[in-house]
């Protein structure tokens, strides 16, 4: 069915499903939750059509476990959830980063804490996506602002997870997830797909956690003589626990972090709008970037030199990009649908203060609010 370029009118959640399939995902395990449920529903229809599997697990702990299990079995796998479910996935998300198993977790954010406002959008999980699981783990988190970006970034999420061997979080929200827009989908044949590197060593020489310069170890499909162990304790290059080896722990931790550094440029996505001469730099991500763009247009029409830096990769935080685009600005404004999460990273990166526009009541930040803020700080 999916032949050639297509123009579709689709929901953000639907775009995630189609992109996952295009990127080669053939396993989805999940547990329904608003506003992510459409992803599970559509996966249950689409996965078997493309020869993949949808499993409805008993909860999010099991969903995340099953996703990692499938990926260990060499099948590209993903899950989707929202705030409370994302919290339940955290332990195994940590497992995936420790054992370096590629997988994608979509978090369609809703208002929290707790059950919050189940059907309303939010950006409250920005810090949870960075620091949710225990320990000093590396992460990659992407954030789409519209349906097309939901499609493109889902493909990138799958590719990055395979390339870097890390779990990748796609931080969507109820607005992006539920909005319907016209999108042009690429010919699946033209989409560049990345597969985790497979080892060329014979089983007797293969060490599952030995890594070269890019710090990402090579994978061996199980069977065919590759009989190896993986565990989530601090482990040696053979995958066995080395829980009292401080040196081994140090080496492993540094490598896991370095791995993200090595790939940082290749996982950093952003867009700019009217930034060349901007005196008022709005830094936004996710659904808020839409309002920010409108605000910048309106301000420009009044002769106020505003610009937009839209971050599509939010972790690892693109500090260099933020520094570069904010350097010439008189003021920096960070609108967010939370009480102020990414703003502190912007402050740190730019070495400057920034003004926040915040709301956490389930209502989108409007262009008007951003316009007012720019005028207020002017």
């Amino acid at each position, binding site marked *: 069915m999916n032949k050639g370029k297509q123009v579709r009118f689709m929901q953000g959640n639907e775009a995630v499903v189609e992109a996952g399939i295009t990127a080669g995902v053939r396993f989805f395990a999940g547990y329904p939750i608003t506003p992510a449920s459409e992803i599970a529903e559509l996966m249950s229809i689409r996965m078997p059509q493309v020869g993949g599997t949808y499993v409805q697990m008993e909860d999010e702990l099991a969903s995340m476990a099953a996703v990692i299990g499938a990926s260990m079995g060499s099948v590209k796998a993903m899950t989707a959830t929202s705030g409370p479910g994302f919290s339940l996935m955290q332990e195994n998300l940590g497992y995936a980063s420790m054992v370096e198993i590629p997988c994608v977790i979509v978090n369609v954010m809703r208002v929290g804490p707790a059950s919050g406002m189940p059907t309303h959008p939010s950006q409250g999980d920005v810090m949870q996506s960075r620091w949710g699981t225990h320990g000093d783990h590396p992460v990659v988190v992407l954030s789409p602002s519209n349906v097309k970006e939901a499609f493109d970034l889902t493909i990138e999420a799958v590719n990055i997870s395979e390339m870097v061997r890390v779990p990748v979080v796609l931080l969507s929200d109820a607005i992006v997830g539920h909005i319907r827009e016209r999108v042009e989908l690429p010919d699946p044949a033209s989409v560049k797909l990345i597969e985790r590197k497979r080892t060329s060593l014979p089983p007797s020489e293969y060490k599952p956690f030995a890594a070269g310069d890019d710090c990402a170890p090579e994978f061996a499909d199980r069977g065919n003589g590759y009989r190896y*162990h993986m565990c989530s304790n601090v482990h040696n290059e053979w995958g066995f626990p080395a829980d009292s080896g401080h040196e081994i722990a140090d080496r492993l931790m540094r490598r896991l972090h370095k791995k993200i550094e090595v790939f940082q440029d290749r996982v950093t996505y952003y867009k700019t709008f009217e930034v060349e001469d901007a005196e008022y730099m709005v830094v936004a991500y996710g659904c808020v970037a839409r309002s920010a763009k409108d605000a910048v247009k309106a301000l420009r029409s009044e002769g106020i030199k505003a610009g937009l830096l839209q971050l599509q990769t939010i972790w690892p935080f693109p500090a260099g990009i933020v520094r570069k685009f904010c350097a010439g600005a008189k003021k920096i404004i960070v609108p967010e649908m939370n009480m102020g999460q990414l703003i502190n990273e912007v402050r740190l990166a730019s070495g400057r203060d920034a003004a926040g526009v915040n709301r956490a009541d389930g209502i989108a930040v409007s262009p008007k609010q951003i316009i007012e803020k720019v005028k207020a700080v002017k």
Partner: protein
Amino acid sequence: MATVRDYLRPGMLPHIWCPGCGDGTVVGALIRAIDKLKIDRDLVTVITGIGCSSRVNNIMDFNSFQTTHGRAVGFATGFKIARPEMKVIVVAGDGDGAGIGGNHLIHAARRNIDIKVILINNQIFGMTGGQFSPLTPYGAIASTAQYENVEYPFDVCKLMEAAGATYVARGTVYHLSLTEKLIARALEHKGFSYVEVITQCPTGYGKRNKMVDPYQLLMWQKEHAVPVEQAAKLSTKEMKDKFVIGEILVRHDRMEFVEANEQLKEKARRWLKGGGGK
């Protein structure tokens, strides 16, 4: 015939278990069952959670991974679907499998997915120092039940039966040849298989319950086990404090999940060709 040692990973001995622990005996039983059935070693994957029992796959030379506490069955579900040709064996402790992981155990049984769960029931949390587990006997002493345990243990075999498992059995370390046979039968069975093996933990359980010597714990197993055929003739009162051993349930009336899923894919493809509709 290969020996158990042929299946052990070079360089991974000595193991971490205490002297007198039952976990190594279960490793022996599992290996002998696999060897007897001539299962290709490359097509065996052992998945564990966290606990002393989870360390079985450090020493056995199969595909293996150790996961998070209680979640091994969830990992195994994804892995089995991805690699249907594999014999997927989960080894869990009683805290790991029936406590924190109890929910996953129930649902995997309900799905009837072809994974084999061997639950090593030493009736205690061993690794964390002898706290009571959901399978610790009523009245026993544990590090978190210093007066006595006032919680009742449950019969996981009955639970598995009710949940929809298609193979359910229980053995002990004392009844070793039976246990080996039960594991072999479970490995041959297509569908969700549960084998509980009652073992001894002299360190976490024995020393607090006046059974310091592993021999005493083995004698306890001998005295409290009742073969399933015999248990059917005994009253509830006579069965008090006793447990059933043997093949408790074998059923063939449920389709295995991975197979059902393959049929679903066929249906979905037909549906797609027909342009949708029922």
